[in-house]
């Protein structure tokens, strides 16, 4: 009896992985989920996958904003968890993975928003953020040149950024500026730096100072401090365009456009790909409007009601051009 019992169990143990193969997913967030739409949607993508694949498990880890600690934390995360796959998102993470990959050769990593080819257990997918910046810049240029009540005659648009960082300096800001200049070459871009990602009061002061100097459209990329920019723009009846996620509800009528990254969809897709064992390991992809992972959120009522049809038409035309490949941006190498 006992022997039969044991045989049954051992058979079960051997067979189980073959039958169910539930995925153990670790999501490493180099920051904090709440307040960072990009990480929130990454987590949401993983959650959606887990919800649809019963038996799979998910561990989220927030590593905080100090980039110097990520290496140590990623290492402990990987060594403690024994995950089937670690999903993460940040341009600088591939460097870290490159450093620890030899230590954990069987550990698979998928990194969104990053670019690094040639590491056998890593697959990266980069958003074409020049494209994203360009779309936002083009929209900002159209708004600033329009006869909307908050727009002025000066050809000035602005950005309030938390800090300078490579993706910002090489992709986003140049893309934004190109977009502006595509509307009118006389546009100038005013970039102001906050010095951190949370001093909303100062962000508000910065935005006000910018507005008094003639800026009428601002793209804030300064983390939680962007609340200050929203406040300043709203108070003075000027306009904002936003990045990465649907932010219209924060200030309808002030936030006139959002150019989103479909991080949730991308994360979900990449996990499915992993489950189907079709992940192209060692490769690096670039995705953008064409692939459907960068999107101007132009279905939102706030967008439709606030912007005149002329602007909306020109934006649709732009998106169409990018989708069709008529207008393309060199895949950034990062």
């Amino acid at each position, binding site marked *: 009896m006992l022997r039969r019992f044991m045989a049954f169990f051992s058979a079960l143990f051997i067979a189980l992985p073959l039958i169910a193969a539930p995925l153990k997913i670790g999501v490493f967030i180099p920051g*904090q989920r*709440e*307040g*960072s739409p990009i990480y929130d949607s990454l987590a949401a993508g993983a959650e959606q996958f887990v919800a649809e694949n019963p038996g799979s498990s998910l561990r989220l880890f927030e590593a905080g904003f100090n980039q110097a600690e990520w290496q140590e934390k990623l290492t402990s995360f990987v060594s403690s968890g024994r995950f089937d796959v670690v999903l993460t998102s940040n341009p600088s993470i591939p460097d870290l993975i490159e450093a620890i990959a030899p230590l954990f050769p069987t550990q698979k990593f998928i990194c969104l928003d990053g670019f690094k080819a040639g590491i056998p257990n890593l697959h990266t997918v980069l958003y074409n953020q020049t494209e994203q910046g360009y779309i936002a810049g083009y929209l900002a240029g159209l708004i600033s040149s329009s006869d909307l009540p908050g727009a002025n005659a000066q050809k000035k648009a602005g950005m309030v950024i938390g800090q*300078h960082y490579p993706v910002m300096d090489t992709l986003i800001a140049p893309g934004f500026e190109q977009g502006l200049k595509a509307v009118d070459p006389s546009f100038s871009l*005013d970039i*102001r*730096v906050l*010095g*951190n990602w*949370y*001093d*909303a*009061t*100062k962000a*508000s*002061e*910065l935005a*006000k*100072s*910018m507005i*008094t*100097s003639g800026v009428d459209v601002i793209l804030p990329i300064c983390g*939680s*401090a962007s*609340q*200050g920019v*929203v*406040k300043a723009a709203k108070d003075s009846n000027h306009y904002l365009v936003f990045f990465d996620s649907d932010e219209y509800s*924060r200030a309808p009528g002030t936030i006139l456009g959002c150019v989103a990254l479909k991080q949730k969809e991308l994360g979900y897709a990449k996990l499915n790909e992993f489950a189907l064992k079709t992940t192209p390991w060692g490769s690096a992809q670039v995705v953008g409007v064409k692939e459907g992972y960068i999107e101007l959120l132009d279905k939102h009522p706030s967008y439709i009601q606030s912007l005149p049809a002329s602007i909306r038409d020109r934006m649709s035309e732009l998106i169409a051009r990018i989708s069709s490949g008529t207008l393309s941006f060199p895949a950034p190498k990062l």
Partner: protein
Amino acid sequence: MTWLDTAGDILASALEAMTPLLLAAAGGLFTELAGMLNIALEGLMLTGAFFGFAAAAASGSLILGVLAGALASSAVAWAYGSATLRLKANAFITGLAANIFAPSITAILSAVWFGTRSVVALDIPEPARPLQAFFGSTSILGRIFFSHHSLVYLSWVLAAGAALLSNRSILGTRIRATGARAEAVAAAGFKPDSYKLAAIILSGFFCGIAGASLSLPLGAYVPAMSSGRGWIALVAIYLGNRRPGRTALACFIFALAESFSNFAQGQFGIPSEFILAIPFAATLIALSLGTSAKRV
């Protein structure tokens, strides 16, 4: 736009930026006079910012918000102060504790009350701009002095009140005496520690309002939004040589440097880091000149 307009705008925004500094410095003044290094100003401000905003959001009343911020921050100050005094612990370390505690407790409560540990933006009433209607906001003087929201003026009144309290009141005299010579206060039959505690609670009170003056006009609570202002306030007190008037002036200099640097970012092609350093450099220079002048 003439340079006069620009200067006016910079001045006006300096006066607005001065508000939290002035209030925090008014609070820190009491602990300084009582002879204590209070590095917890930062944490106390954050507490005030959170509870002030939460109360304003719940009640829809800014006045209640300001009060709640002041009270909550006073309560934290009381806890920090009594730990320091009763346990005879090192004030620097307990201050550090308060500064670590404030963001933690606000995040925990924020998760409970608002469902997020991040930015909480809700519709709360705008602070009124009480003098704008009377004096207009078109003239330069009007923009500099009369265009601000009520918390700016409240901060002036409170700062004056703090000066009066520290110089003219019985409590203020006792606190100063404690700082000047605690054993004499004990010899006179009072408990120096209770005046130190009173000073800490007062610093909490003012810092709480300082925090509320960050979150209420913004209509949002942002984690870590005090952003080093507590330290700057402390510097201002030193710069002002622990005198109310001079401390207020120091706060103004600091705010002016900051709003100038905000303006300068758009104007000159200097790396932003250097411009961000302007307030610190300005303070350092002012401190060097100020004390050397005093020494002669």
